[in-house]
């Protein structure tokens, strides 16, 4: 569907302020930490711009597919997984030994099953997934501040309970790349994704008789105007996110992740309020303990998350859509709180959100990523129905 472009009035004050913040923070990170830390912040900035301009979210897309079988968003996710797998498998399979990187391998476990289910439900109630919450906060959506706040609370509670969840049945880490070699594993994975894509296309065509285009945004006069002001077609988002995820892998040494930072922020706030998390098993050793004991700016996931938020602020200001009006509905606050808590807790149990658990897992060839996808989608289907109960959406089949 193509519609006529309307003139855009960029918010110049916010654009200028954000650019100054970005410049200051990137220089500060380079001076205080390293070029690497500064680069990761800038990669996060790129991710935020891409997510907002392409309106690339998982919760809305899954909801559209579950409710009305419209599959453009879901197809874009499958394309993202396929393209990122193409980029990741050779690197993780040591086809280029000069690039050292580690895969996001998680256990195929009850904790992932339950965590992803809770996350899927939570992202429908909260109004955004892991990446979606960050970029909509950056876009100035006030309700999403509540979701993010309780996302942090949920993640902190999750760190308190994770040890118990890890005692439940667990098949351990299963890597397709290690089991099959990266070439057969890549062929197998792309085949599975192609089947998924075909199923989504079939279901959409069966319901509507046609497919919604991945390039259905408002056209702008030129490429550069569209690039800067947006909106972007979904396939630009797919390409942008895949390339920026690859850059993250090469610079950070691991795939793009989001929600470890939320637990860390929660632990730091709790400590500042007089609490003590150092006795919790999760925070008592290893990277977590060190992260707690040093500046939040030393944590790469935090720095990337800050970049995503500022990138989204910048993109929204350029598009003239920063801090839009929100018509508050009866259960908006309730659903934001419940959704945030479920997502935070679920992400910790599931070894990451839709990005760090599902996307990173699948494109690393880890079977836990596929388990996440299955459980997360079932959770989303439950969440879609709960949205109707909480008056966030009309009943199924309604036109409005």
């Amino acid at each position, binding site marked *: 569907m193509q519609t006529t472009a309307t003139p855009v009035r960029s*918010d110049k004050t916010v654009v200028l302020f954000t650019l100054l913040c970005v410049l200051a923070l990137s220089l500060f990170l*380079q001076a*205080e*930490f*390293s*070029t*690497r830390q500064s680069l990761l912040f800038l990669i996060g900035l790129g991710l935020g711009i891409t997510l907002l301009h392409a309106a690339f979210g998982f919760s809305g897309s899954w909801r559209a597919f579950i409710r009305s079988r419209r599959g453009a968003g879901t197809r874009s996710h499958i394309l993202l997984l396929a393209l990122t797998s193409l980029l990741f498998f050779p690197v993780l399979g040591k086809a280029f030994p000069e690039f*050292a*990187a*580690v*895969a*996001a*391998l*998680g256990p195929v476990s009850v904790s992932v099953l339950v965590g992803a289910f809770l996350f899927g439900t939570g992202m429908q109630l909260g109004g955004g997934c892991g990446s979606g919450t960050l970029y909509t906060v950056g876009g*100035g959506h*006030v309700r999403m*501040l509540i979701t993010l706040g309780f996302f942090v609370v949920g993640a902190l509670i999750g760190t308190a309970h*994770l040890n118990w969840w*890890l005692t439940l049945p667990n098949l351990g*880490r299963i890597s397709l790349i290690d089991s099959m070699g990266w070439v057969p594993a890549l062929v197998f994975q792309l085949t599975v994704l192609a089947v998924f894509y075909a199923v989504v296309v079939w279901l959409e065509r069966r319901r509507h008789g046609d497919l919604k285009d991945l390039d259905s945004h408002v056209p702008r006069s030129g490429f550069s105007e569209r690039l800067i002001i947006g909106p972007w077609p979904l396939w630009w988002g797919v390409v942008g996110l895949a390339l920026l995820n690859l850059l993250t892998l090469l*610079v*950070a*040494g*691991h795939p793009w*992740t989001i929600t*470890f930072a939320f637990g860390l922020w929660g632990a*730091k*706030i709790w400590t*500042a309020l007089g609490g003590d998390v150092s006795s919790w098993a*999760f925070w008592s*050793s*290893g*990277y*977590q303990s*060190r992260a707690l*004991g*040093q*500046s*939040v*700016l*030393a*944590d*790469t*996931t935090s720095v990337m998350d*800050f970049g995503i*938020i500022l990138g989204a602020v910048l993109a929204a200001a350029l598009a*003239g*859509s*920063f*801090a*839009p*009006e*929100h018509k508050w509905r009866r259960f908006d606050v309730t659903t934001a709180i419940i959704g945030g808590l479920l997502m935070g807790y679920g992400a910790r149990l599931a*070894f*990451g959100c839709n990005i*760090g*658990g599902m996307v*990173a*897992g699948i494109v690393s060839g880890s079977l836990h*990523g596929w388990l996440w996808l299955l459980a997360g989608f079932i959770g989303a289907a439950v969440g879609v129905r709960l949205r109707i109960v909480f008056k966030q959406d009309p009943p199924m089949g309604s036109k409005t």
Partner: protein
Amino acid sequence: MSRRNRLIMGSAIGLAAIAVAVDHTSHRLPEPVTATSEQDGDELAGSSEAPCGLTVSPCSLDESPCSLEMESPCSL
């Protein structure tokens, strides 16, 4: 766009910035890194202070923020 929402968002971002600054200054600062290309290359090859950095890493199989002393899933 809403003036009130801009004010709320500005306040939230300002508060977050203050919280980060307080947190940063309350911890011992790391040794400054001289920005030479050789050192930068070393960091890219294996920072020891990153989640999923390559030498001391939650994603390496030794330590994980996700898995405690158990096997190491690295999705953060």
